[in-house]
């Protein structure tokens, strides 16, 4: 299974995302922001970092990169796409997911081991988890406060599209403790915490993040 990992100028966790794909048994494929296509991959990860310095708004400039048109098309066609942190911001800016991200409520960058609840274990990226399962993965961002209007939030809740919720203290002021969401079809998932940093007990707080990558590989194997 070939999983593309996009590198934008300023992407930082692209190598770690590729490593996580490898640990889970997939083949990572390097995608470059200026590419016009996604090189026939089976799924795409938009990694964390500060694309284009996150100047203007987090993810805004990357959301308009050439490769994103191909990613948007592929996502609309059902290809699994995962946006992690900056990747989540890019998905929102590219309108693949609703809502937007603001500066953290306390205005500081926060790096910590974060407890999350998997609220939807039926997406392409969460099928390896149990519904309601709690996991711990790193969280690190300064623009992680998820907002959307009430109607959108109600809709997300009603349709089970809140994929992850922060457990315990809300780290950034996200509305309704939302840590990640999915599109209606369940193939596009975005979240602020970093599952790719939790695939090896030596370097991560847990190995709880591995399930994201095994989920998508599993799903594709049975597709």
């Amino acid at each position, binding site marked *: 299974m070939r999983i593309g990992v996009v590198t934008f100028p300023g992407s930082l966790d692209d190598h770690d995302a590729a490593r996580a794909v490898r640990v889970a048994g997939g083949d990572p494929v390097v995608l470059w922001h200026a590419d016009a296509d996604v090189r026939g991959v089976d799924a795409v990860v938009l990694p964390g970092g500060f694309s284009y*310095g996150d100047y203007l708004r987090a993810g805004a400039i990357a959301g308009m990169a050439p490769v994103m048109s191909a990613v948007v098309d592929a996502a609309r066609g059902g290809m699994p796409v995962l946006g992690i942190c900056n990747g989540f911001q890019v998905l929102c800016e590219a309108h693949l997911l609703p809502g937007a991200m603001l500066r953290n409520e306390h205005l500081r*960058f926060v790096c910590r081991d974060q407890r999350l609840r998997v609220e939807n274990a039926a997406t392409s990226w969460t099928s390896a988890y149990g519904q309601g399962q709690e996991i711990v993965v790193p969280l*690190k961002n300064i623009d992680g406060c998820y907002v959307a209007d009430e109607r959108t939030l109600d809709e997300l809740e009603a349709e089970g599209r809140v994929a992850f919720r922060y457990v315990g203290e809300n780290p950034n002021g996200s509305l309704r403790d939302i840590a990640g969401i999915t599109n209606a079809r369940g193939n596009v998932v975005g979240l602020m915490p970093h599952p790719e*940093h939790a695939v090896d007990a030596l*370097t991560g707080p847990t190995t709880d993040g591995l399930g994201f990558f095994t989920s998508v590989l599993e799903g594709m194997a049975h597709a």
Partner: protein
Amino acid sequence: MTMELDTTEVAAKTPDHEQPWAELGLKEHEYDRIRDILGRRPTNAELAMYSVMWSEHCSYKSSKVHLRRFGEQAPHSDALLVGMGENAGVVDVGHGYAVTFKIESHNHPSYVEPYQGAATGVGGIVRDILAMGARPIAVMDPLRFGPMDAPDTKRVLPGVVAGIGGYGNCLGLPNIGGEVVFDPSYAANPLVNALCVGVLRHEDIHLANASGVGNKIVLFGARTGGDGIGGASILASESFDDTKPSKRPSVQVGDPFMEKVLIECCLELFSARVVEGIQDLGAAGISCATSELASNGDGGMHVDLEKVLLRDPSLTPGEILMSESQERMMGVVAPENLDAFLAITAKWDVETAVIGEVTDTGRLVIDWHGETIVDVDPRTVAHDGPVYERPYERPAWQDDLQAASPSSLPRPAGGAQLRETLLQLAAAPNLASKSWVTDQYDRYVLGNTVLAQPENAGVVRIDDQTGLGVAVATDGNGRYTKLDPYAGAQLALAEAYRNVATSGARPVAVTDCLNFGSPEDPGVMWQFAEAVRGLADGCQTLGTPVTGGNVSLYNQTGDVAILPTPVVGVLGVLDDVARRTPLGFRETGHAIYLLGTTREEFGGSEWAHVVHGHLGGLPPAVDLDAERQLGEILIAAARDGLIDAAHDLSDGGLAQALVESTLRYGVGARVAVPGGIDPFVFLFSESQGRALVAVSPDTDERFVRLCAERGYPNQRIGVVGGAALSVDDLFDVDLDELRRAHESTFPAAFDA
């Protein structure tokens, strides 16, 4: 209207032209020497160049005579691939890998503009590492501030921390450690030191020099603007053009995104082998880069300065030479590689200009639109600057200070008072949890961080296959150093060494940042000379050469200097990072051992400082042979899997080590005060050469044998377990209460 350009020709004809050398920070005899060297008066551009390159910051003119000790006394080390004098030293770590690391200060700019000052400090040290051909893999940030409750500290500290995080996080470099220390002497002189570690293959080491006649000199990265040239605008006599900004700032704004792109771009240039060498541009900008590249190479260079890409077209040639715009690099490129070079910079959207070439003239010649404005022997600019043998003298007050022993200070007695002291220290600014700071730093990025704050040392993996990795710790105790500068520097070294060994790594090399007051004060100069002597002697004894570092002088307010603060970074090697030793207690039933000898040592201690506001007496005794022995035990025990956790003892003594070890994973401990020692001394003395270790019953016997074989003092003082820290017959502290004390201090001070 622009005045006639001050060319070398004009200068030769107008020897009496008045020049603002004093305003540029030169002494009269220095100006005279420049005239001697050139055989005429300098042009304005030359004056600009000499004045920055001969400044204390760039020329090390007050410290040079002392720093030589580091080279002369360097212990032999097979591991040293590149020694002092280059951008950064390079150390062999095995399997064909090498590591380079260096620490630098950005103190003054961080006081003026905390966010940008600290951010550009990180940016600068990362470019130093990059210039060696290495990929930067981690940063650290030893910090010093005025009192925590001072209003100005509330401006400076949050800005500095946000700046270090803002820049480092955006570069994608994990922050793996540092220090946060408070003392009134740093109130208007905060210390912002930054350390970077990089990794490379042996064959990829690059030294920055301009050799190969005909090779191109290329400037790439950010455009050159009016940043950091405060003083150079004095040369405005060069121009009466009143449209240009009147006052140039002396603070730079960094662009970490540009730097991230520059890192990837430089590494691609190196690996494509299309560049001979790269020099970073830091202090003194193009002046420094051209004169250093030329004098380290074949000695000649010709530059057409108007080819430099500018952000601000009103800059004069002198200002362009002095500009400290960030995120710029200078490359030396063979003509046949130029196209390939430009293709790579274009791929990364990095603006690039060919500004000159290497010559065999032995002269650095800089033209401005065809007219020569600089014609100098580059060595006279970069290497043969003034050297001062500044007078130094042990200050008169030193005796009184050392006589003011803490022995007569009232001490806590009985369980209740000891308990209260433990909580008071655990919550004191210097010992309280630093997570308010470190939570603002990304420690996970790059996926190789094995240990970071609050561990003894930062540990990063270098090679996935073998598990090869390095450990780095930085330490420095200004109070100890004030009491005895020679010993203080050695204590800083000993602590960093101990931290690295405690994490299981074998210490191999040292970098240092020497932060002191004014060198023109003989007392400060004495502190400096003694500290250097102490550090050089210490490195010789421990077999860890100094590979590079930085000196920051003039850290003082009026006549009052900061505490003399040598910050020492030690780098160690771990053959397999899976063998590292973490500091927290984890397993109920593990035995707790105290290694080393506890004496009654409270001079300069955290207890005397926090409880009595007292500084006097002598610092704890240094025994570097003991440190080495302790290190060997900790390293062997880690390698053989004999210990589960270890924590070195330092500020706050055993009590503080127990606090940190129990809070790490919320697993308590019960200890007993051994017979024959006063409980207060046992808990709070800061004797050196000690560590706390947790040992599983399965390996207990082998561990004790290991210590015995080496004849190192060790005592079983307790056992891991429970939800409290208990000292038999004296007191219990519930871990929840302990955690509140330890973790509330920073949020209470800075979450206004």
